[in-house]
């Protein structure tokens, strides 16, 4: 792979302008929009664009974090800092039914946990607040079914996506008409690549969760992935041991489902350099993506973001 140096200034400017246009369109055309905030690097970029799009006004739409209760502690601390800044309203939703049932990725597996604590939880929150447009940070370069999705992606009243019958989408002229109870998911970062995201974070000096930077962390090797032991709920299996290794994360999610990569990249410049020479894709560290019975397309049809 070639180096990132040729990613020009103007390319990032074009991406930024397109995203801001999408944010403004959502604000202007919908009654009750929300921005989904997952605390990861893409969400950091989204939050930055949200602020830029409506400047000098403060963002009018709230930000929603669907908390599975299994996020890295550093993520939650980062989220609380964002909320403390005070310019954006941060909502947090937890599926309390799931908590009562004791749903856990460690005992119920990735599929059940993700369904109950993320997909169902998200639908609960959207229904509870009556949001008619939900902005997310998904990018088309992440995964095959995402590569097919529109920027304004229609959902029926049951939050389902019909990939075989998407609304055609022309130029930047988006159809924002829906009936009561229906909604759209909107993806302002559709045309960004992972590299664009990091170059933009570097250019704009956007804060991200420290977990993206390499440092010695306690990890366990499990099913071929390096899982970080983030709290006392993590139970070692027979033969497993906790090791301190210099690792970082390319994506962030629930800590028992997120594999670390061995790396010494502890600055943005090193991360970008490492990625330019990488031979593996970003979502490799996601345990849920490798479960063959739970393709992204199917999860998305059911309402996953």
């Amino acid at each position, binding site marked *: 792979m070639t180096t990132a140096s040729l990613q020009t200034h103007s390319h990032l400017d074009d991406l930024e302008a397109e995203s*801001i246009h999408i944010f403004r369109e959502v604000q202007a055309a919908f009654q009750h929009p929300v921005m989904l905030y997952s605390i990861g690097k893409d969400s950091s970029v989204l939050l930055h664009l949200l602020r830029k*799009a409506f400047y000098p006004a403060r963002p009018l739409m709230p930000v929603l974090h669907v908390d599975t209760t299994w996020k890295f502690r550093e993520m939650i601390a980062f989220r609380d800092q964002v909320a403390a800044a005070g310019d954006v309203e941060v909502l947090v939703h937890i599926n309390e039914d799931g908590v009562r049932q004791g749903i856990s990725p460690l005992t119920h597996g990735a599929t059940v946990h993700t369904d109950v604590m993320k997909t169902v939880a998200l639908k609960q929150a959207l229904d509870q607040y009556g949001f008619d447009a939900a902005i997310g940070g998904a990018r088309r*370069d992440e995964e095959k079914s995402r590569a*097919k999705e529109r920027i304004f992606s229609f959902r029926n009243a049951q939050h389902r996506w019909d*990939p075989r019958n998407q*609304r055609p989408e022309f130029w930047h002229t988006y159809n924002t008409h829906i009936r009561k109870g229906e909604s759209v998911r909107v993806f302002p970062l559709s045309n960004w690549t992972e590299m664009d995201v990091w170059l933009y974070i570097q250019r704009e000096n956007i804060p991200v969760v420290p977990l993206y930077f390499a440092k010695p962390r306690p990890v366990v090797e499990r099913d071929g992935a390096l899982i970080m032991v983030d709290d006392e709920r993590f139970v070692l299996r027979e033969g497993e041991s906790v090791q301190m290794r210099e690792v970082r994360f390319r994506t962030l999610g629930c800590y028992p489902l997120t594999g670390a990569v061995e790396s010494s990249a502890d600055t943005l410049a090193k991360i970008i350099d490492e990625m330019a020479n990488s031979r593996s*894709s970003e979502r490799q560290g996601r345990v849920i993506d490798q479960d063959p019975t739970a393709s992204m*397309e199917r999860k998305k049809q059911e309402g996953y973001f």
Partner: protein
Amino acid sequence: MSVSTAPGLLRFITCGSVDDGKSSLLGRLLYDAGMLPDDQLAALARDSRRQHADASDVLDFSLLTDGLDAERQQGITIDVAYRYFHTARRSFIVADCPGHEQYTRNMATGASNAELAVVLVDARKGVLPQTRRHTYICGLLGIRQVVLAVNKMDLVDYDPVVYAAIAAQYRVLAQEMGIVEVHCLPVVALTGDNVGARSSRMPWYQGDSLLELLEKVEVTPFRAADFRMPVQWVNRPDHAFRGYAGTICGGRVSCGDEVIVQPGGQSAHIERIVSADGDLPSAADGQAVTLCLDREIDVSRGDVIADALRPAPVSDQFTCHLLWMGDATLLPNRTYWLKIGTRTVNARVMSIKYKVDVNSQAKLAARHLSLNEVGYCTLGLDDEIAFEAYASNRTLGGFILIDRQSNATVACGMLDFALGRSANVHWQHVDIDRTVRAASKGQHPLCLWFTGLSGAGKSTIANLVERRLHALGYHTYLLDGDNVRHGINKDLGFTPEDRVENIRRIAEVAHLMVDAGLIVLVSAISPYRSERQSARELFDKAEFMEVFVDTPLEECERRDVKGLYRKARAGTIRNFTGIDAPYERPEAPDIHLLSNGERAEQLAEQVTVELLARLDNSGSHE
């Protein structure tokens, strides 16, 4: 070919027929550009083995881009897939487009944001009707450059004569369709010949490989010179600040420039160009900014801020190309929402001048357009808009039509030019207006619209209501659907297109009569929700009451006063509502008459009571 020293991002699409090897070519391109990470390659090898048990070591690159389960099962591309890659020289966004005619709308989706198309043909088959169709759609959506990749050269023994014949034939047809520049090359997608690197098996081809070509090709930006910005959102955080947020879609603007707000026509100067990174001295095409003006004028979402010296043309009637994408056919004179830039306005197709056979490009007469058909049409809007010809500005010349019942995107359109007639037809001012006319009759005029199946009792009830009103001293007129078909609508039949026009005329006539001060009773089947909604929208809210005469089909058929149901069942008349043509029930009528055993007199009384209540509410009858 023009070669640029520092080419920018290239957005292109790939299109070709089934089995031309389009997805394979794209997969191969990504592989050769070094863009396939190890875990994706491993997954590809696994999927290839599953799909092709007989050839275990071949990588099936089409599995990389056909991302939907249904696509992989059927082995076809249904929707556009976007892929992102770069080489040392350039970044690319490629939209892999479906080739099937039934997915033309998805191909057009991909083409709408592309600057170049890679069109594939199979060397054994040459130029096919599909090749013509893909090239035509590319030209229609404004793509001016095409790379023709003649694939599967291995299957014609790398014969330069076969290649040259296909290339020559294609150049001719591409030119007919408005493609300005064509680059041709021979490839074998499966083995990568002339894809990433030049092939040693076709020494007679001296040109660039596909990747080299894409790296070098220079695209003329599809951008207009004069400053234009559709207002997206009015930014008003407090009383001190008022800015107009939008994305500039043409030209450049600087502080101090005089601008005009269209279609209204008020002008002002640019005071500030605000961005989150600080105020800017000037801004250009493609930038998302917030403009502040030096004086307070009325500006809202949908307006266009333009160069005051060179403003955009303004009109409410146009000619345009329309690519129809609705499952239901386009009906001329039906009202749809038209969205252009950030403006949404009611629009009707007034006439279809011709439709274009997308495979042969022959111009054919047409009364309606079906899924994936292209027509050249005249368009009428409820309000004027600022626009540009699509050929000079995609944002202000490209529009979508949205169905008002289903909210589906049913068409994309490309504006050509404004029709002169609207500019020369003005509203004539008259001194005696509707208020005066209504007052002289001492009543509040309104329209009572009876809808329901044939034989439901609409005319009988309307007649009884009119007699009651007349006896009470009201000035009325009963417009009967059957009667107007003997006169003003004599030229119309019972096809869906004609029914739409029938109702439009009745509604306009009723509107004139209400304007004249009358209480108008309309009795017409009016089977479509969309046209009843359009009729309602002609009137003020308090001036229109929809009366649904809800008689079950079996009952209407049993009565069969005119003997029409018998003929419809026998097949001697066609397009009969309720039998072989649909009736769309009103969802929220103002008056709902359930005629189960009730006599017409009782139902008429119900209408009269509700009507008088409405008239009382809007002021007493003098």
